[in-house]
């Protein structure tokens, strides 16, 4: 049986677009929110939902230069596929949805 995934909300597509633009980079929540023009009240529930669906991976920063370690985010292979489906212009042509290899963190 063919299973169609539901189209994500426009806000979620914006987040996918921004993350897919440089899929190997780990991103901070605050800067990501500024980039896509989403307030924290909308951004964090989207990030939580993407993580629950294994479209996003999250980790804590290693040894930050200043202050406490921050939470970092980037798309998983499934997330990149999702971005390629719903925001195809944002995914770099040189990268296939199945990301062969990732660059180092940040």
């Amino acid at each position, binding site marked *: 049986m063919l299973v169609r995934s539901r189209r994500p909300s426009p806000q979620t597509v914006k987040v996918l677009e921004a993350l897919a633009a440089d899929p190997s980079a780990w991103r*901070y*929540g*605050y800067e990501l929110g500024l980039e896509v023009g989403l*307030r*924290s*009240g*909308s*951004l*964090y*529930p989207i*990030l*939580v939902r993407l993580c629950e669906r294994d479209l996003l991976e*999250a980790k804590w920063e290693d040894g930050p230069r200043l*202050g*406490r*370690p*921050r*939470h970092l985010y980037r798309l998983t292979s499934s997330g990149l596929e999702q971005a390629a489906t719903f925001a195809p212009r944002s995914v770099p042509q040189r990268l296939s949805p199945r990301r062969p290899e990732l660059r180092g963190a940040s």
Partner: protein
Amino acid sequence: MLAATFAVPATLRVLCLGGGADRDRAQLLLEFAVRGLPADRLDWAQAMLVELDQVEGRQERWQFSLGCVWAAVRIRVRSREPGGALLRVVVLGCAVIALALVGYGLVHYPGLRSEPNVGGAMIVFLVTLLTYTALTAFLSRGDTQRSAAARRYGLTGGLAVGAGWFLGISPPSALKGWVFLPLLIALVGPATVAAVAGHRASDSRTGTLAALWSGLVGGLTVFIVWVSVTYMNAGGPYDSGLVSDFHKSNAPDLATYAVSDDLGSGLVLLLMIPTVAFALGSLSARLAAATRRI
């Protein structure tokens, strides 16, 4: 008056702690809000708190903090964390019964619908029920020993308050002469429950939650008992003061006037019992947890 005495200063304390710097107030508000998140969402709570450190400017910090508070509410409501089903069923069931009882009164005593201020009273009543069920939906989940203990003590305390009122006011009453007993149970019961829960868990939050649950369940069950007894007696027994006031009113008959009067008292109890229970319970839970640690 009680809300002004206890709730307003407590809220101000939360907002003003930290020497008055705006940075700290925004942070404190967010720290307070993310406390309700379940254990499997604590990373997200921490992530939002750490990101707030990066935000510069008073207005921006408040915007980010308030946004995160809203995010925490949405994350909490969507959470599928187990536990608390019984409490949610009890609170929701009591709210539905309370609503049905008021609906019955409006149908059975049509004169109530033309009473002055009935619209305002209905709005207060509905907002109160909505607030109680929303609080329960938001805070009742959790499968830790402490959250389970808070629910167990809270539910027991709340039902004891309701049972105390039932014994105290329903005829034939074995406790007829003890007119202050129900009020005493409503005041002391949740505070005692909170103190025991806080002491046993060595944690004031467990006691405070127990006080909240006992207050909500107690307030709702007392309202149900109070209104049911009112309908059984058609608002009676009627004393001379009530009869005298009735003659000055525009009520169509004495029963309608007495029921209207009792529904007003029921609404006050529905608001007062949880407020007092939470205020006294949080205080006694803090004291009990502190004495345990000493």
